[in-house]
């Protein structure tokens, strides 16, 4: 029997039992659809995050923090990191001299301190507390700060700020473009020397009577950053709402601390910066720069080191999503077995006739096997279409919902070609596996018994 004839037999038989074919294939369709949907979501997440990291050049970045020579462990703000690297114990202070030394290290393109301070930020009467991030002009103009409207400040001394799109919305400016040119008021908190002289120390322990004063500074908004749903500016800068150049920042009276962590470092002898961002020319320089910086007495954190972990995490996420999809596939496979066994019973006599006119066991096995495979192919193709359509629908609904909250349009699902090919192949494989038992059973039919069958 020719291959084409066996395929023809399969499709003729499926056409004859249209409703049952449809229902059985629908099971496969749902299973494959769920699988495609799940995996495309996993791939979408991975693609978005990887793209975000790459676009912000995060793989070529290194964070330098005060602390020992020990290896940085995970999140620098995480509790483990803090315990493992106690503040300033080695005595190395991350001051301007250290920043300059780091910047001179071969392989380093730029190094700038992470400086921020808490302030009340207001625009046309609306006010909110924010950490103001002091960022050099070179960094503000880089992909790390994605200015979508207006521009970044041209020099480190230009008097102007950049705000994030969502923050502008929170302050009542619906159209981010309209925020450009408006005046932002930054009200900082600093020590009030006058109050310090008449300080009632007992009140300090209950949180009252702090010797602080407020001072306001006005800056024109030069640019507004784009929304970054996946932290496209990377962890750190992406989460900041207000960027200020170093020049004007120096003129702002403010507290030298932003957290209890700084208080510890201050009491240990030298405050310095809480962190320094280092940009490398190439990922290849990472190890050399890291060891140099550690020799200076600082600890480091590189996202590139975490990439394997991130990849592994995505792999596990894919596996979990695929496992959920697999449940539907297993149910669909049972449906195929059921349909095919039913088909044997219905076509019992036909099998006998085919054998009587010369069909061998192999031919019968092939006919049933191909029939089962055809269900898989039909179901798989429809499943790919269903998964794709469902993903697009979910994507649209989620984006509609998030657009109301000022989030930009993002493709949460990714459809690499291998996903469809793989899904079709997998569907075919599962249905062929489901067809093994029915095909063998059909091939074993005794023609004499079958021909007597009514």
């Amino acid at each position, binding site marked *: *029997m*020719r291959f084409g*004839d066996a395929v023809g037999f399969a499709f*003729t038989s499926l056409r*004859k039992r249209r409703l049952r074919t449809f229902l059985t294939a629908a099971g496969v369709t749902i299973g494959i659809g769920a699988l495609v949907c799940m995996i495309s979501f996993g791939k979408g997440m991975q693609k978005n995050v990887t793209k975000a990291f790459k676009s912000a050049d995060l793989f070529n970045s290194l964070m330098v923090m005060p602390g020992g020579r020990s290896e940085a462990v995970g999140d620098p703000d995480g509790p483990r990191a803090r315990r493992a690297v106690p503040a300033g114990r080695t005595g190395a202070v991350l001051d301007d001299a250290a920043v300059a030394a780091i910047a001179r290290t071969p392989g380093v393109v730029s190094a700038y301190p992470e400086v921020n301070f808490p302030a009340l930020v207001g625009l046309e009467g609306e006010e909110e507390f924010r950490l103001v991030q002091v960022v050099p002009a070179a960094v503000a103009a880089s992909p790390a700060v994605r200015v979508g409207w207006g521009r970044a400040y041209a020099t480190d001394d230009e008097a102007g700020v950049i705000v994030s799109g969502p923050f502008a919305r929170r302050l009542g400016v619906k159209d981010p473009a309209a925020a450009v040119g408006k005046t932002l008021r930054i009200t900082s908190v600093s020590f009030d020397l006058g109050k310090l002289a008449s300080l009632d120390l007992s009140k300090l322990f209950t949180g009252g009577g702090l010797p602080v004063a407020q001072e306001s500074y006005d800056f024109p908004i030069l640019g507004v950053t784009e929304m970054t749903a996946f932290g496209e500016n990377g962890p750190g800068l992406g989460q900041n709402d207000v960027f200020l150049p170093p020049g004007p920042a120096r003129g702002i009276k403010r507290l030298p601390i932003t957290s209890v962590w700084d208080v510890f470092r201050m009491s240990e002898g030298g405050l310095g910066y809480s962190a320094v961002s280092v940009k490398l020319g190439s990922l290849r320089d990472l190890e050399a720069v890291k060891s140099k910086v550690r020799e200076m007495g600082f600890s480091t954190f590189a996202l590139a080191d975490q990439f394997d972990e991130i990849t592994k995490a995505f792999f596990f996420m894919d596996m979990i999503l695929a496992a959920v999809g697999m449940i539907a596939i297993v149910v669909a496979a049972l449906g195929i077995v059921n349909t095919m066994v039913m088909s044997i019973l219905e076509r019992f*006599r*036909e099998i*006998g*006739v*085919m*054998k*009587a*006119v*010369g*069909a*061998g*066991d*192999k*031919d019968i096995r092939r006919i049933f096997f191909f029939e089962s495979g055809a269900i898989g192919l039909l179901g798989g193709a429809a499943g790919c279409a269903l998964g794709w359509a469902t993903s697009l629908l979910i994507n649209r609904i989620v984006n509609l919902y998030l657009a109301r909250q000022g989030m930009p349009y993002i493709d949460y699902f990714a459809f690499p070609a291998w996903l469809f090919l793989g899904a079709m192949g997998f569907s075919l494989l599962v249905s062929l596996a489901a067809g093994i038992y029915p095909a063998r059973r059909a091939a074993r039919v005794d*023609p*004499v018994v079958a*021909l007597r069958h009514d």
Partner: protein
Amino acid sequence: MNAPPLLQTRSLSKTYVIGDVRVEALADVTVAVGEGRFVAVIGASGSGKSTLLNLLGGLDTPTAGTIEVGGALISAMDREALARHRRHVAGMIFQSFNLIPARTALENVELPLIFAGVERAERRRRATELLDRVGLAARAAHRPSELSGGEQQRVAVARALANGPRILLADEPTGNLDSRTSREIVGLLAGLNRDRGLTVVMVTHEEGLAREHADEVVRLRDGRVVAAGGGE
């Protein structure tokens, strides 16, 4: 010099075990059919006629004894070899026609050619020619349900001839037909035997038809050959 028979059985037995009961369908059957002969096997219901035909056609395997067709030992063949025997050597027709209802007359005739791996255009040509030979060229596109009993049996005959078998095995081919149509069908088989030299073994309970057309009549009773001899 006598040519060796095309078909030869020796001490052929077939015993079925149904539960605890052993049913001896055939016992010690030894028959020989020469090439180009028309042999009728007659006997009452349950005498083992159909069992004998199933064994000759390679649909079933004997419990004991041997079957030789054209020098090949059918009784020792494995399942695939038996399938080849059914496909190329022994064409079969049945009382209930056994056409596939969903397929047209032409497609039913094509069926053995499909299993023989004949390519589509060639099998169309051969099936059309066979239908023409049995007088059904005009009914090629009809499904079995649209054909009369006689027409269905003609389609079955055409199908049995598809791969050019050496022997045609007919199991009660007139059992579901009226007497006029029965005569036509047996006449068709006799014509194939006479004109093309096709060896025919026909199981029937109609002794008159058997004696009229057959060269030899083998009479079975309770699974044993009780008489064998020439027809009219």
